[in-house]
């Protein structure tokens, strides 16, 4: 058994490191046709093809792998990170996990600053991935417009100990957007053979929608970029409403054709429908995006077209949320008397 590095191959799907599995035009995440959940709801659109791009099949389990890899590469290029040094970032979920695992693969450290209200599973996963955690006390009167405590604490670590910590800052760092212009966008263009007419994505840092909007509009300005967002007071992890956009500098409204608000309950019913009818293990944000696509298609009834939905991650991390919104899932789980 050789310990020398093997040559990674997309063809054989044999890799020397999970880092070599990161997505690109030559190694795109799969796109799968969605039919069942769509046809269940309304008139059929025989000329239209709707696809889900399965971002949970990235090596570190979410769409955030793309941004995380680009952010770390950016730190490397600016000589801010290296062996024995750590990435520090405010994150409550997927970005933290992707950063932690990529850091682990590269021999860097990771420190995640998370609000206390983040589900236990996410905190545990971060620790499992080797991250140090700062858990923020959110037992305080909320202050509207207050600088997000987790952003400030992460910034503090990086500023007070720059030899130890570097903060990529997913909300301000353009590498986040460029990742999608360089990977996700070209993948989609090639996978749809340039026939794409609609792109459906949501909004967290706005890296995905801005990057995809810029790339795809650059290829064909008629492609409709639809940003699907939850309503105020939602609990869909990872997503923001437009009113919270002040917290990200990456949003470029010039490349977005429509911002569509969907009630957050439909994130869970939509995910359930896609799981049951199309056998795709969609997480809540994917469910929301599906409901956005369904709404647009029912409204506009295109005779032809190709829609691509970004399915950010799968259902595994969100069991508690699913139970909250679909309580029937918790029934019949004990032996009957």
């Amino acid at each position, binding site marked *: 058994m050789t310990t020398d590095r093997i040559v990674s191959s997309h063809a054989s799907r044999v890799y020397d490191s999970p880092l070599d599995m990161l997505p690109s035009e030559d190694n795109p995440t799969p796109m799968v046709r969605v039919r069942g959940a769509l046809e269940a709801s309304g008139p059929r659109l025989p000329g239209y093809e709707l696809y889900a791009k399965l971002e949970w099949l990235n090596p570190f389990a979410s769409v955030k792998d793309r941004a995380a890899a680009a952010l770390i590469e950016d730190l490397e290029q600016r000589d801010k990170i290296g062996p024995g040094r750590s990435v520090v970032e405010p994150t409550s979920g997927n970005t933290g996990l992707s950063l932690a695992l990529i850091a682990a693969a590269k021999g860097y450290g990771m420190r995640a600053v998370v609000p206390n209200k983040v589900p236990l599973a996410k905190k545990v996963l971060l620790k499992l991935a080797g991250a140090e955690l700062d858990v923020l006390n959110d037992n305080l009167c909320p202050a509207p417009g207050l*600088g997000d405590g987790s952003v400030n604490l992460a910034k503090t670590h990086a500023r007070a100990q720059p030899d130890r910590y570097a903060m990529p800052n997913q909300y301000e760092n353009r590498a986040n957007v460029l990742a999608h212009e360089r990977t996700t966008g070209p993948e989609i263009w090639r996978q749809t053979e340039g026939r794409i007419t609609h792109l459906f994505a949501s909004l967290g840092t706005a890296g995905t929608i801005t990057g995809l909007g810029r790339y795809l509009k650059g290829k064909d300005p008629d492609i409709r970029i639809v940003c699907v967002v939850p309503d105020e007071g939602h609990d869909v992890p990872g997503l923001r409403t437009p009113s919270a956009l002040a917290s990200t500098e990456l949003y470029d409204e010039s490349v977005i054709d429509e911002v569509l608000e969907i009630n957050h309950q439909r994130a869970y019913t939509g995910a359930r429908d896609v799981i049951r009818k199309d056998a795709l293990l969609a997480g809540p944000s994917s469910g929301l995006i599906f409901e956005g696509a369904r709404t647009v298609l029912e409204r506009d009834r295109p005779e032809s077209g190709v829609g691509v939905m970004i399915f950010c991650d799968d259902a595994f991390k969100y069991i508690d949320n699913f139970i909250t919104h679909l309580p029937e899932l918790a029934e019949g789980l004990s032996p009957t008397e």
Partner: protein
Amino acid sequence: MSDFAHPEVLVSTDWVAERLDAPDFRLVEVDVDSQAYNAGHLPGAVGFNWQTQLQDQVTRDILSKEQFEALIGGAGIGRDDTVVLYGDNHNWFAAYAFWLFKIYGHERVLLMDGGRNKWLADESKPLTTDVPEVTPVAYTASEPDASLRARVTDVLRVVDDGTHNLVDVRSPDEFTGKVIAPPGMSETAQRGGHIPGARSIPWAKAVNEDSTFKPREELERIYTAEAGVDQSRDTIAYCRIGERSSHTWFVLKYLLGIENVRNYDGSWTEYGSMVGVPIEQGAPQPANA
């Protein structure tokens, strides 16, 4: 610093930064807990944890004179030292510490406008994890100045009699009684609503996004023109547990120059649970009511 009534108590982050190498003041950071200070603070600053160090841990009360002397003297701060306070959350807890310093008669107390948030926004401003060495000194405080603090008896005496401004700095939903406390807060009260006659001015209206205070003209508009605070009247500010209201106390007294302003630190967790006290619910009265 705009034309605040008492501009001398507010210093800018630049002012502090220029003097870091040879400060003639003691820098004190006050945060809700020690997390922020431990991660990084201004060089030379000592840190106080608002939860564990700025309140009596057994009785619900401010620090006693003896406790205050032990805390401040233990941090190496002398009675004649100039103290510059700053902290997290728009200087929320730093303002509370300012109030406490004034209650115990410390003469030279300053607040760094913008606090941690403003300092952090400037990449050139240094932060350190080094904890300064302090030499404890004997600190003698004055007897507490009761004119800065309202007790519930003071409040009940003036409820709705038109002699005082009652300034409620909580969120609109707390003011109307739609919620008793912000969602997820454990310290609540038996009833929702506000003290009859109180004006609703959420505390954060006084600051910009970078946590610095808004200019005088804007504060006048917010507090007086829009909310009806009569600056010739004695004033009591309150919130849920008395920490947000000390921020507003600072604004009313030092920036707007209202002469007699008290912080009702018992606030709604006390008032809203008392048997038989008058409570009003619903939207605030218009400014000229």
